[in-house]
């Protein structure tokens, strides 16, 4: 659980910092190049991270049940 909190904090810091950056310079950073395809990649990567984290947690829970 502690690990997950740390991860969420990291995610929060990353997203807020990119938000302030976007306000300073509205053009020509990586996320805005190539028809903004990197934004799609970021969205899908986030979903994939979320799904895999869920699966890993489920795996852990079942392992715990098996030990009982």
């Amino acid at each position, binding site marked *: 659980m502690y690990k997950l909190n740390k991860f969420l904090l990291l995610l929060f810091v990353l997203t807020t910092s990119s938000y302030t950056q976007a306000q300073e310079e509205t053009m020509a950073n990586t996320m805005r190049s190539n028809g903004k*395809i*990197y934004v*799609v*990649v970021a969205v*899908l*990567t986030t979903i*994939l991270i979320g799904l*895999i984290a869920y*699966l*890993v947690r*489920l*795996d*852990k829970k*079942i*392992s715990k*049940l*098996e030990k009982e």
Partner: protein
Amino acid sequence: MRLNWWKLLTIALLFYAVIGGFLLPVPELSQLGETIRNLYFHVCMWFAMMILFTISIIHSIKYLNNKSAVHDIKAKEYAAVGSYLGILGYLTGAIWASYTWADPNNPAYASLGSIMREPKLIGAALALLVYGAYFILRSSITDMDQRARVSAVYNVFAYAMLFPTIWIIPRLLPSLHPGQEGNPALNFNDIDARMRMVFYPAVIGWTLLGAWIAGLNVRLEIIKEKKISNV
């Protein structure tokens, strides 16, 4: 808890499929455009389904040989995840087709309804319904040994039905769906070399993800069985 090596491989391959699948170069085709990247997702669903159904029938045959309940559980869970991926493959295919096959200038293919009469789509739907019947059959028998035995035999039949419905009949009829001649996506001549670099790892990644989910369900079912037998 440390993850098995193949679970780490699953994660790595899926990230590669998503990131490489969007950023690596693909051939430019007029009708498909960027949708060609769906190969890494839509087609992988069907490949993973076929592999999971194969694992399922192997466990059904093993069950018929040694009557061990674990094989029955495994056969059921692999078939369940396989069917689920098949449904996802069908839905993604419907989305893909409605933006590439549908042609407002050609009355024969103007609407989604006219496209969905494709022999390949009907065959795939039939195959999924045959597997749907497998789960209905399972839930209709209360005696555990009888359920396991009857559904194992039915699973062999369901697997056999995959061959006419998704492999043979669609190839005998004209279709908009690619892969009319030979083995679609497996043929080295009909898939671009750059796409193969992402496609094959993606197939392995999605299949392993399916096997991971099925494995979790199997372990959960075994825990449940133990609880019931202890009480």
